[in-house]
């Protein structure tokens, strides 16, 4: 039971009278990288929010050994961190101030900062190569730099489970790779469990060690990248024509245009 970093049974989230997450079973071993894929509206973001305990859900759920329903927001945020799709950047905040927000779960009653907090902040800033940006305003950063700041903030939470909600959908191809390489490095070094909702199937196949394919709130396939990223299945779920190129680093999903339209 407690061997799983994340465990859910018949997890459901009802939004506006509809089960957007419709009975999901999932066991994730610590240190794994699970890419959650699926068409728009499949429930990827909702599932991420439910796992983080940000929205009410029903069914059995345990994340990092805690149940979001019986634990305070503060306790949850010390075990699970969420990297949002488009982070909100308050005007005028510096990089260091944003990273420091990651220590919120460890704040004392009167909001004072301890030496541990300061040293964690400094070390994640160094680790993610943000030292030169530390006193810069975050609004001046590029998309890729900003995602690094948000990743640093998530790491400052010292989580066991890192949830990524389409972390690279706003980035160009180079920055997508940089951010995902960084996540992979952190996963290996710290044995952090990564669950990432991903839009790009090729990136999911390259970085995920396990792929969960969602459709209409349910799991339709769950397994290794090669097993799940399969042309017929994707064709059915996405309504797309794709070809799969197997590479040693993982499968590559290529969209093919309709024949006879050229």
């Amino acid at each position, binding site marked *: 039971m407690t061997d799983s970093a994340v465990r859910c049974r018949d997890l459901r989230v009802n939004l506006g009278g509809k089960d957007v997450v419709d009975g999901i079973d999932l066991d994730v071993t610590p240190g794994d990288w699970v890419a959650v894929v699926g068409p728009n509206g499949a429930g990827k973001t909702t599932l991420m929010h439910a796992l983080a305990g940000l929205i009410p859900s029903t069914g059995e759920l345990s994340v990092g050994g805690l149940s979001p329903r019986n634990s*305070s927001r*503060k306790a949850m945020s010390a075990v699970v961190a969420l990297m949002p799709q488009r982070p*909100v*950047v308050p005007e005028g905040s510096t990089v260091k101030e944003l990273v420091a927000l*990651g220590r*919120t779960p460890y704040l004392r009653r009167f*909001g004072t900062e301890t030496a541990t907090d300061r040293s964690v902040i400094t070390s994640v800033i160094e680790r993610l190569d943000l030292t030169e940006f530390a006193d810069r305003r975050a609004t001046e950063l590029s998309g890729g730099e900003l995602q690094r700041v948000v990743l640093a903030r998530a790491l400052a939470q010292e989580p066991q489970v890192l949830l990524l909600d389409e972390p690279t959908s706003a980035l160009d191809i180079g920055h997508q790779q940089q951010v995902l390489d960084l996540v992979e490095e952190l996963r290996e070094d710290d044995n952090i469990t990564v669950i990432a909702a991903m839009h790009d199937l090729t990136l999911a196949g390259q970085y995920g060690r396990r792929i969960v394919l969602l459709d209409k709130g349910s799991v339709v396939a769950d397994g290794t990248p090669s097993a799940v990223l399969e042309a017929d299945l994707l064709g059915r779920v996405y309504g797309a024509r794709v070809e799969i190129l197997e590479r040693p680093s993982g499968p590559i999903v290529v969209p093919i245009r309709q024949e006879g339209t050229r």
Partner: protein
Amino acid sequence: MIKAGISQHRTAVLLGAALILCAALLIGVLVGPAGLTPDRTILELLDGIPGIHIDSGLTATQQAILWQIRLPRVVLGALVGAMLAVAGAAYQGVFRNPLADPYLLGVSSGAGLGATLAIVSGGALGMFGIPMAAFVGGVLAVFATYSLGRSIGGPQNAVVIILAGVAVAAFTNAAQTFVQQRFDDSLREVYSWLLGGLSTDGWSEVLVVLPYVALASAVILVHRRVLDVMAVGDVEAASLGVDPARSRLVLVLAATLGTAAVVSASGLIGFVGIVVPHAVRLVVGPSHRLLLPLSLMLGAAFLVLTDVAARTVLAPAELPIGVVTAMIGAPFFLLVLRRSRVSA
């Protein structure tokens, strides 16, 4: 090295603000017709500290003016200014809205209506009851404003909430005027209160307001980091361990309680809550760790100096202090509106 630099910088900024506040308090005490000189006044003030005895050389009349007229007025001004500025910063933080201000959200008018009802009911609630009645009025007004703004334009729409606040303020002002007309025997009392102003009757107003201001500011200051977290929006704030709905409720109640108490003592004084926090943000940035204590001190200094202006510009006549803050604040408000429109 960097860390030491930043905390030294912070201490220096706080110290600077404290000096500005001391200077403002001193100016507030000195300016006026009684001919108090700085050196003698400082000695007299030191003499007031228990255990210190200095002969300041002030006459008995001058001493009475200092202790029973000037000082209470200056202290009340400082409390009101500090509270309005901190409340403004807190409202701006929880609503993620740079335009929020106790006056513009309708809190002040709601508190005014509550206080008026307490006054016309013949003081049945007693002197300490007026702030409570003002609090109830203020809370009702801020929740009306927020739920109206939310239902019309969504929680993120800064301008719509302010428009809702204008509507709520107009309605409560009308209700307040209506009540005032119906009970014309207490008209004078209500009217002189409503015009605002820091004229005091010895220390009694200060004693009524002080506990509310102390409690409300303490609650807001303890939440300085929570306010920083709330700046990233509800979803991210929740993922960082803050309960946004609960924190918003606690902060709105604290800011409204403090505002209501000072409104019940000083009448409607607008724009302090918008001018001071914004001026501070321009200099030190948006982090509430500096913004809140600086707003507290500089809000106090701002209102004390505004009061000096209000009583000297047309001396011996006195200008209502709300008129002076509005003359400074309204153009400033437009500036903030312009800036927030550009960034939105």
